[in-house]
């Protein structure tokens, strides 16, 4: 009984220790990250987009979907800061509400990619042999389509709509996560602490979850951040072609697709949605680059 209490106290103590260690690591990471101007610019850009999408109803007084044809195609300036579209809807309003959708698609698609790619990559790297072979051939097959083409083919198969766009873009992110996690796990697998965990009889699933993955996670975070940018880019591309979220829902890609029909008479209708996509992707690219530099000290000199 007594030993048991002591053990649990020690467990608590060691938890506190590792907790403090983690805090230190996080502070050190932030120090390295915040020193980089470009990374901070990315962070600020993204925070601004998040805030704008969340507080959209407070910023703009208009309805994003309600049509008013008497106000169609009004040039930017005046009451409608960025003008109105062909159905008389305020562009700025639709852009702000559209940010919600584009970001949601991006996050859910990358989450999907992680949910499939992370376990497959870990299993592939940890077990090796034929399991590895099968999973790697699977990744090869997915990788033999350029990612936009893969998402496009899947949407052609599954049909349009929010859920199918998320799945299609998510699947196209899967192989990169498989490859990345496998690579890290391969080196971690050989470490002594894994061997000791195995020798005291810890189950494989627990080893992978508690000891392997936490040590393989840094490059995954970087890749996920960069993938958020490309997921938004791909999803918007599908929307642009009319294969994404269907009207009247405001989404950056489909807005750009609508603007394209007015490119000769009202070029602003295509200019602003594209600019929004560009800024969001730029934000994620800057953030991802900054995180990589902060997490991987070897790259700092470059």
């Amino acid at each position, binding site marked *: 009984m007594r030993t048991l209490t002591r053990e649990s106290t020690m467990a608590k103590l060691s938890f506190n220790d590792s907790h403090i260690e983690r805090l230190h690591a996080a502070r050190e990471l932030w120090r390295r990250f915040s020193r980089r101007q470009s990374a901070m610019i990315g962070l600020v850009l993204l925070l601004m987009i998040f805030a704008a999408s969340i507080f959209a109803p407070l910023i703009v007084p208009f309805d994003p979907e309600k049509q008013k044809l008497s106000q169609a195609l009004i040039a930017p300036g005046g009451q409608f800061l960025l003008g109105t579209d062909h159905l008389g809807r305020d562009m700025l309003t639709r852009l702000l509400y559209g940010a919600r959708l584009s970001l949601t698609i991006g996050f859910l698609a990358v989450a999907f990619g992680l949910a499939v790619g992370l376990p497959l990559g870990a299993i592939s790297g940890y077990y090796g042999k034929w399991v590895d072979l099968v999973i790697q*051939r*699977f990744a*090869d*097959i997915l990788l*033999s*389509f*350029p*990612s*936009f*083409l893969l998402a*496009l*083919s899947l949407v*052609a*198969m599954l*049909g349009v709509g929010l859920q199918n766009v998320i799945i299609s873009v998510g699947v196209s992110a899967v192989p990169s996560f498989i490859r990345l996690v496998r690579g890290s796990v391969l080196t971690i697998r050989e470490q002594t602490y894994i061997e000791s965990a195995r020798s005291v009889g810890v189950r494989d699933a627990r080893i992978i979850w508690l000891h392997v993955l936490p040590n393989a996670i840094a490059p995954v975070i970087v890749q996920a951040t960069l993938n958020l*940018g490309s997921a938004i*880019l791909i999803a*918007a*591309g599908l929307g*642009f*072609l*009319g*294969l994404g979220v269907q009207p009247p829902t405001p989404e950056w890609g489909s807005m*750009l697709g609508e*603007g*394209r029909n007015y*490119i*000769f008479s009202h*070029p602003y209708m*295509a*200019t602003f*949605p*594209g*600019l929004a*996509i*560009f800024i969001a*992707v*730029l934000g994620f*690219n*800057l953030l991802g680059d900054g995180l990589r530099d902060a997490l991987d000290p070897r790259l700092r*000199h*470059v």
Partner: protein
Amino acid sequence: MLRYLQQRFIAALITLFGITIIVFAILRMLPGDPARVIAGLLATEEDVARLRVALGLDQPMLIQYANFLGNLARGDLGTSARTSQPVLDEVLARLPATMQLAIVSMAIAALIGIPVGVIAATRRNSLLDYVLSIITLFGVSMPVYWLGLMLIVIFAVNLQMLPAAGNENLTSLILPSLTLAAFSIALIARMTRSSMLEVLHQDYVRTARAKGLRERGVIFRHALQNAFIPVITVLGLQFGTLLGGAVLTESVFGWPGIGLLMLDSIFARDYPVVQGVVFIFAAMFIGLNVAVDVVYAYIDPRIHYG
């Protein structure tokens, strides 16, 4: 070398085999009856039944797949639901336009991207490097389809210098190929820069400088040659990405390639053609990857062919 090539070739064949399963699944995974989808909404029940037998869709899956493979081996990708022409003919008719666009874009991307990367690396932390970094970062963050539209606004609408769409003469190639190349230019430049920076730190570069070689000799004879290896990989992969991006670029400029064919077929629910285009795209991409591996092994003597 021969054994290495054999291995790569076998791996590519396995992947290609996997592709056939996916392509086969495209039609079968569609919600509803594939025969109905191919026949179109106006077809009568008898027409659909006849088509189902004609396409062998009434047979078990495995036999269907075996037939599909057999046809594929004979170069038969099925028949277009819209035009009743063989899919292979439709795809081959459109392929040259896409290849023309992709090859010109690739050439532009390499000819601009590599020098930009080298210049940025040799003048590291200078104002020029800083400006180039910003431009290339913009390049990889920009949606290609948006860039295409903006180029149309500037050069076709405002300046009236270049045609906005179509494929009549060489000038109509300028905007689409620049649009398609933009992302690759930026990526290749970034890749070349970081690869060059890594190499410039190496001992042999210092040695080359120490023995009194002029800076140009150091850069071109020693650094660039070694920095080139990762760049080649990116070039190869970029060609595949270019083919994928061609769908969007072709749509923006009405360029009559296989990307546009695929889009039109998706909207017309002409799934045999969608299948065919997906298969051709994937097959080209796999072939390209093998080619990159071969070139890679050829330039980098450190790679063992065993």
